[in-house]
């Protein structure tokens, strides 16, 4: 009989071969009161792949991301991370899975009482206890350099701009070297130059780390730049899923309108 270890090894090999998805969302439903936000969504993301989730405001894009990382519980459906269904897992068990995931919040969600460097060091302090203080400092400097924030390690989050906060949030999300990266509106509220810089940064990270990523965005240009596949959501359903060219060739009215107005 195969042990849990054998199953995990087999799953990892299948993910590397591109046979098994790293993230598999099946028939996900979520309502808030009487409002149906997700109505039976199914999506999957393979290793080294970036899926951009697009759609109008309030169509449940961020809720989908929060369900994938276990911050919200779906009404029904399953979310498998590395082959394991995470729906209903206890908080500490979920913590083990979250160590393999990085999450960039829409407003960065930096800890406002900690400096930029302390924010990035936060996951390391809690999960890399074997690291010495100097090793941790080195790793934080390396992460901040990676996102172009090396000179700002002593600043407080309130003293830096929104774009810089997102960079720091990204550095924090990368601290534990995740296999899965979830980005909630990484370019929202940024000027075109900062947006472009964030996109370049995400592309660079994808090339170097081969993570499975889900990016929720309104920004079609950004989605086209950073994603291999796009999924367009409307009224809790996936209207279309495919490459940017697939979306362009679609004759679905909503897709045409979305592309025309974006």
């Amino acid at each position, binding site marked *: 009989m195969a042990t849990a270890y054998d199953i995990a090894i087999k799953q990892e090999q299948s993910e590397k071969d591109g046979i098994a998805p790293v993230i598999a969302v099946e028939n996900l439903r979520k309502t808030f009161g009487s409002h149906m936000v997700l109505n039976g969504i199914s999506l999957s993301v393979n290793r080294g792949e970036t899926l951009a989730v697009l759609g109008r405001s309030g169509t449940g894009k961020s809720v989908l991301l*929060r369900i994938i990382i276990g911050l919200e519980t779906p009404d029904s459906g399953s979310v498998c991370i590395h082959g394991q269904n995470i729906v209903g897992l206890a908080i500490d068990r979920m913590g083990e899975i979250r160590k393999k995931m990085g999450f960039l919040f829409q407003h960065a969600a930096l800890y406002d009482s900690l400096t930029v460097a302390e924010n990035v060091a936060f996951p390391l302090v809690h999960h890399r206890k074997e690291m010495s203080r100097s090793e941790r400092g080195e790793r934080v400097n390396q992460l901040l350099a990676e996102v172009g924030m090396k000179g700002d390690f002593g600043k407080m989050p309130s003293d830096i701009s929104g774009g810089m906060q997102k960079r720091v949030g990204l550095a924090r999300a990368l601290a534990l070297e995740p296999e899965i990266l979830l980005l909630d509106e990484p370019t929202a509220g940024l000027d075109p130059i900062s947006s472009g810089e964030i996109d370049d940064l995400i592309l660079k990270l994808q090339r170097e780390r081969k993570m499975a990523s889900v990016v929720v965005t309104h920004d079609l240009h950004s989605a086209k730049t950073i994603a291999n596949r796009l999924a367009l959501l409307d009224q809790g359903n996936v209207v279309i899923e495919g490459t940017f060219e697939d979306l362009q060739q679609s004759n679905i009215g909503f897709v045409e309108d979305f592309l025309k107005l974006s």
Partner: protein
Amino acid sequence: MSNSGSIAVPAINPPHSGRRTELLSTAANSAAGLVEGFFEWFGNLGIFFWQVLRAAVTPPYEWRELIRQLDEVGSKSFPVVVMAGSAIGVIISLEARYSLSRFGAKSMFPATLVYSVIQVMGPIITGLVVSGRVGAGIGAELASMKVTEQIDAIEASAINPYRLLAATRILACILMLPLLTLVSDACGLLMGWFAQTLVEPLSFHQFIQDGFKGATFNTFLPQTFKTAVYGLIIGLIASFQGMRTRGGAEGVGRAATNSVVLASLFVILADVVLVKFILVVFP
């Protein structure tokens, strides 16, 4: 066809009965909603307490955050507890001297002051002062973290927020309340004696000897250590109110206010139960 010969039958129901029924129904629904809300709040508090308890007793332990919270709750409440304790000592001293003089029982002054401060006023005043300062602080801090998604960010970083944020704060309140009560009691006695001495000189040695005559540890220790329960109430309610906040700046304000009001109310209610319990268990 009109029935011209028949007599019109007056309506059985008065014209306003429909409206009255509607009002009664609305009132009944509101009352039901209030009762439901009351039980829902207690149910959620119970679930929250269970989650915190489970997180607190399983590793990893957040020692660093606990020490930070001990400083936040203990050291930073020190000045306000000293002032409140001193004021209570002076007030009791003034009142007791006046009342005892009227009944010709001035010799009872030291014992009256000692028992009033240590058994009654010291613990409850410390509980209320800490509930105001610390309860509002914890409620507002956690609520602000909640609405800015910082608590979600902690959870997304694979850290249990019940362990890091709630358990450490509650434990700090439980540990620091008895110590702050001792400080408050000491200040109350010292200032009470000082206020008395200004009017009628009394040596401190004599004051302590008369005040504690016949007292045992059972007389004072349960009264002091019952404040650990106040600490549990303050930490638990403030953390609960903070971590379930919704709705921006208004939500933060509401969480801070509710933390103070509910924590103070439950401290007073707990005192009623604890006084009776101590009288029965430590007669």
